């Protein structure tokens, strides 16, 4: 079973993502801020990591910055951003993030993106 880490301080959105992807048969692990996400990444391996752009402790960008290039080669990162934030996307690309999900998104969009990345 593919393991996905979702890091978002907004627990409702995190829950929605978890429930949606668990229904699709993925195994989900949750982190409520950037620091928790980092410590989970250190200890466990994931097939995909979903990061929210704006988080306390470490932002999504700061989390990505602290990950090695080698790790980022192996594990795809998805950044959740606000639709209008063009420079968020540029900043994310600069730290090696390849996938983006603009908020708001529908569960279907999320599932499609995850499937595309993981197959």
């Amino acid at each position, binding site marked *: 079973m593919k393991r996905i880490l979702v890091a978002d301080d*907004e*627990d*409702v*959105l995190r*829950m*929605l993502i978890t429930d*949606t992807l668990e229904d699709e048969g993925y195994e989900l692990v949750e982190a409520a801020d950037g620091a928790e996400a980092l410590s989970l990444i250190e200890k466990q391996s994931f097939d995909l990591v979903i990061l929210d752009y*704006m988080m306390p402790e470490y932002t999504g960008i700061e989390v990505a910055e602290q990950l090695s290039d080698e790790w980022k080669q192996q594990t795809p990162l998805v950044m*959740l951003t*606000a639709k209008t934030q063009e420079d968020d996307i540029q900043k994310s690309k600069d730290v090696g993030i390849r996938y983006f999900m603009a*908020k*708001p*998104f*529908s*569960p279907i969009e999320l599932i499609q993106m995850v499937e595309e990345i993981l197959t």
Partner: protein
Amino acid sequence: MKNYEKYQQLFLKNISKRLAGWHKQDAIEEKDIYQLLHTIKGTAASIGLDDLSNEAESMMGSIRPEATDPWDEEAWSELFQPILLNFDFGDGDLIDHGFSSSASQPLQEQPTILILEDDLDFLHYFRENMESYGYNVLMATTEERALTLFYDEKPDLFIIDYYLQGKNGLHIVGEIGTQANSILTPIIVISADHSKELARRVYETTAIDFIPKPIDFEMMNAIIRNRLLHVYSLKKQITTDKLTKTYNRTYLYELLDRKKKSYKRKPEPFCLAILDLDDFKQVNDTYGHVVGDQVLRNLSEVLHTKTRPEDVVVRYGGEEFIVVMPNIHKELAQVRLQEVLGHFKQVTHASDNDSFTLSFTTGIAEMNADIKKMEDLIVQADTALYQGKRSGKGVVVNYEDGLELNEILQMEKLVHISIVDDDQTIREMLQDRLSELSFYDSNARVETYEDGESFLEETHTTKYKHVVLLDGILPGKDGLDVLDDLREKDQDAIVIMLTGRQQGDDIIRALDLGADDYMTKPFSMDELVARIRRIVRRHKGGRKG
């Protein structure tokens, strides 16, 4: 299409919590507002609250993301006015929607049949016969009267004569057919005309049966019973939680709607209790969802067998159950639910290679004349539940008047721990261990300082319980001087001095200066943790003073 209701409710609750937090502060910073609006904008639209998202987006136009300008409550509540309407728990769309969509008729011992028939002789003959089979019969001779009775009395079944003063009865079937379908009211058409053509036209409508006159009442009764049983089993499916076989929210709202009406007519006491399994998340995390589901079924079984037959058990959400208890005051309800809790705590839950026991926490609210909306009763019970969780779980708490949820949420806030020590090893060791401590479901927040000056510079908000672990000997300003300075500006912080064995005099001075406790180095971590827990408990109800 996903059902977003649970996310929406939780989300609105979270926003309310955030605003309740602001309410306790003199002023907040502009960037805090920006962040909240940003969150609302992004999340609301993902869970089907598009209007709220749009509203937040338009509000963001005038707010600067980095600004630290203070906003007082008057200012921010004015800004939030348009959307405050959206997340008032009492007036919220969500609950209202829940109540109004459950227009279906309660399951009754004595089913009510509405008949539309303009032949008075037949009407009385019909009523006499049907009443003898135990039905309650409502009679209408005109379409207008029938519609009024249909909408007001919500009959379980509707019988229409095809021929009405020359007009045809299928007209009214068309008019109410969809409505009747959606609330599961079967329509039967009767007629003196037996023609195949008429029968076909009847079955092309939403009517469920076509029965020729003269009526054979034995047969009529069999047909009606058959149709009603079918409807009841459908209704049961719609109102049953599949996992635990308890009722679900759909039924709860229907039940509370009825309860409210009957209380208005005749104010007999009843209580509503919300039960929430303690540490259920840990069960799922440790043993997996299969075991978690079994735990929910175990709780459901205890609730069914150990409550009174007239009590109604509802799965309210995840690991939350509601028990509606008729004819009982809250004091007795509390005793009864404590008994139920006692039974449940003895139940052993099994996983593949382990077994464990659990408890639940309960909040109870009793109906009274001041409660206008049933959601308020749920909120009161929920408030008591929060209080129970805060006071250590595994308890049954009655709602007390004047208890505000906001105050309780405020009290359950984080515990902050400041470590002031010049020894880096000790700082790190303490931080690692204490960061794992949790109080009332939230982790302690730990800050470290290498000397007294940097600690004193930091302003600590007075909202949290603040525990200070203060080394007696520090470079620069000495530990005792730091304590002295701290006490001048903050009487409430809980101070534990860390001292060497030989420093008896210092201990006495520290206590004189207002230290709450002391530990002599070297100390055991477990002892320190135990002391912190004890001392935090002792200072319960927020800050002393």
